[in-house]
């Protein structure tokens, strides 16, 4: 009763404050919810929201469906026999939304800005190979004529064309936005050749994008796009229900439970993409109780992925048999999955010397005990961890759980201070090249976890060889070696293949997915 009275009272105050009722989004405008501000949209760095950078800036090559390479600001390209020299023919008649023309000089200026800030792009082997050319006193990026440009590498490097297609960092900023000829110390504006331009941004509230009238290509249908900042998960979904926003998009923003709730609501559409990345456990081969391959294999056999996919992830992710799904380039190889099988696991544990003593499994009198660390913000990870804890305890294995705040967790991974942890592959189109490439450097948990396997040095070499191979078969052979070794060593327990998600109200049409889960194909959407 008192609460109702208070609500009535509150209503009086509220109605006094109302200037206009909550308005539904305008007809030619698409409003969607994001969890943070668009931040710094400098296309040559990584600190801005990808959807926004993708609306404003374009690259030489477009990644179409299934990662197909399509012409974009380059109409044509060719690669030399030795794989070291790339030549691009640029599209004519393209202008930036500030009126500056797009030409070979501008392309060179943009590439040079990236080389000028090389330390920020260490994940890209291509930048390193370009810098290596520059060190010899030669220019790596050269203007051939007004609409032709060539890029030379110190070594052949096949993923370059894919890297040109992802949102960062190879996109073109208007020369008028450069600060002292470069972009490493910030930019003066965010102007690209894209079909939309940034019309306004109220920090931490909303950003608006409007169509660029002189866009060279096909005009998108939606006139204005508004990205509203709503940091809280629940509040975002409530805003969708109340009509304040039309769409919530992305794996990180929609929980499985929320997706299921909206699935049955007739006012909304829900869609799922093809698998985009792998959710997995990473096992530290340096850890005392996990340095035996048989133990790691036993844990793989003890993990019931079907239950995790169906019960915990509510069927929104598919059980994963291998580190990378078979539709990932170069990952379509024959590997025998570790099927869920308690007996095999027991045999392996016994063979490794971990025998059952009462209810606990021991070796040399020491009980089996390992710790699974996870990011405490990720509720799903905690749930999976608790499930494994109860399952594995049935075999006398003690699994301790440690949930930590994100940055502390990432520190732990980097420094190898873990037994087990969760991990996610980079996702299409970065898999396999960037995900495997990242294993070579002491930056992520992968590097630390692999230190205990005898073939680590060969693994790193094969990864590098795969990136530099000029011939498909050779490259496949290197990738096969890497994937097979990691599989046999059971360094990873693949759990599920993640699928991207979107929920939107029925007035929206053409909502789909790009190869990269971090992008939102807003340009293809329309309003009924």
């Amino acid at each position, binding site marked *: 009763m008192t609460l109702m009275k208070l609500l009535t009272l509150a209503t009086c105050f*509220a109605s006094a404050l109302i200037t206009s009722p909550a308005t539904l989004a305008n007809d030619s405008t698409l409003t969607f919810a994001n969890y943070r501000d668009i931040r*710094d949209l400098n296309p040559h760095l990584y600190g801005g929201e990808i959807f926004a950078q993708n609306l404003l800036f374009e690259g030489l090559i477009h990644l179409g469906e299934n990662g197909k390479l399509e012409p974009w600001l380059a109409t044509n390209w060719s690669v030399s026999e030795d794989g070291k020299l790339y030549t691009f023919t640029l599209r004519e008649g393209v202008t930036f939304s500030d009126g500056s023309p797009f030409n070979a000089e501008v392309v060179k200026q943009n590439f040079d800005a990236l080389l000028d800030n090389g*330390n920020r792009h260490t*994940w890209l082997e291509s930048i390193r190979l370009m810098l290596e050319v520059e060190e010899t006193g030669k220019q790596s990026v050269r203007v051939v004529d007004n609409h032709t440009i060539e890029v030379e590498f110190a070594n052949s490097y096949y993923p370059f064309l894919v890297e040109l297609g992802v949102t960062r960092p190879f996109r073109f900023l208007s020369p008028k936005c450069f600060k002292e000829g470069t972009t490493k110390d910030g930019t003066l504006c965010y102007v690209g050749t894209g079909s939309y331009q940034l019309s306004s941004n109220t920090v931490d509230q909303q950003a608006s994008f409007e169509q660029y009238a002189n866009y060279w290509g096909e005009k998108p249908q939606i006139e204005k796009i508004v990205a*509203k*900042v709503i940091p809280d998960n629940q509040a975002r979904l409530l805003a969708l229900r109340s009509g304040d926003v039309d769409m919530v998009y992305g794996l990180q923003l929609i929980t499985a439970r929320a997706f299921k709730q909206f699935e049955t609501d007739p006012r909304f559409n829900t869609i799922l993409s093809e698998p985009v990345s792998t959710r997995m456990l990473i096992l530290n081969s340096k850890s005392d109780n996990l340095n035996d391959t048989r133990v790691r294999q036993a844990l793989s056999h003890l993990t019931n992925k079907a239950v995790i996919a169906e019960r915990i992830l509510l069927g929104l992710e598919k059980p994963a048999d291998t580190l990378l799904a078979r539709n990932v380039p170069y990952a379509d190889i024959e590997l025998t999955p570790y099927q869920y099988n308690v007996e095999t696991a027991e045999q392996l544990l016994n063979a490794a010397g971990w025998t059952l003593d009462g209810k606990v499994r021991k070796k040399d009198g020491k009980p089996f005990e390992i710790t699974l660390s996870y990011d405490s913000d990720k509720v799903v990870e905690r749930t999976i961890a608790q499930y494994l804890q109860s399952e594995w305890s049935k075999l006398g294995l003690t699994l301790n759980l440690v949930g930590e705040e994100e*940055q502390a967790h990432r520190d732990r991974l980097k420094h190898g201070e873990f037994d087990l942890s969760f991990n996610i592959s980079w996702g299409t189109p970065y898999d396999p090249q960037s995900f495997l490439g990242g294993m070579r450097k002491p930056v992520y948990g992968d590097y630390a976890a692999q230190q205990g396997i005898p073939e680590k040095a060969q693994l790193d070499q094969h990864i590098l060889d795969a990136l530099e191979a000029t011939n498909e078969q050779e490259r496949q052979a290197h990738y096969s070696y890497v994937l097979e070794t990691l599989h046999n060593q059971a360094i990873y327990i693949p759990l599920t293949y993640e699928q991207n998600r979107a929920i939107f109200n029925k007035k929206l049409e053409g909502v789909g997915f790009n190869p990269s889960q971090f992008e939102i194909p807003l340009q293809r959407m329309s309003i009924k």
Partner: protein
Amino acid sequence: MLGACITLLLVSFIAFTMVNLIPADPAEVALRVNDTTPSEEAIEEIRIKLGLDQPFLVRYTHWLSASLQGDFGTSFTNANRSVFGELARSFPYTLTLAGISLVLLIAVSIPLGVLSAVYKDHWLDKIVRTFIFASTAMPNFWLAFILIWFFSIKLYWLPSSGATSWSHYALPSITLCMAYIATYIRLIRNSMLDTMQDNYVSYARARGLSEYQVIWKHLLKNSLQTSMTALGIGVVRLIAGTVVIESIFAIPGLGRLALSAIFNRDYPVIQAYILVMGCLFVLSNLIIDILQTVIDPRLKSEGEYQ
């Protein structure tokens, strides 16, 4: 005044030390939150750029002297933004939210507090006490969602998030003041009950003043004095208490700035936030002290005799 300065110096030192005790390397985190691969070269480069290669005390003195001039440095997570600019941008939102909440707080807690004291043990008092109980027990994020569900989704009356018009502040300010309302009603109720025993109340009644005059003119004025300190601190508490509410209602205020700074290990922003909050608390205490002496001259003379 001297005490206040020492307190502030202490606050600044604690703010700086505590933040630096966080185990993560801020240079590395600064790269990570910008989705940049934190390679050794990149970390080294950014460490020098951010001045993190300097010894602790050097950094502290630099920071303190710059802060005193209003320069809190630049945000680690976005080099284009100065910390002062960030604070200046978010403060008005939080101030508006806290201001409306304060008005609500006073408008609701004084009448309810007085009523429940005057009608002690009457059904009215019992209802107020139940309300106190309920509002203390209810987590404010939960109340926030109930309000959104009712007013934004069921009735379509009010927007659920953002801060672009006055109507956007309605739900968050109700939620915010609810967290403190119970405390103030109880405070006013108790001090009213205490004051009622005083001789001057009986004297006022004996003088034949109406019950209305006794309660609203004499009792309330004297009871409010004790509640004043609490209310003064309350203003700052309202400002500091906006963290959760600003996140839920997507208000780009100080609370949210602090929260994201903590998650991103944005040292300069965290330090500046703690310092500003410390200043506000010390300042509001000072103002309340002065105000109280103005209202009740007895306090001043007591001080002089001691």
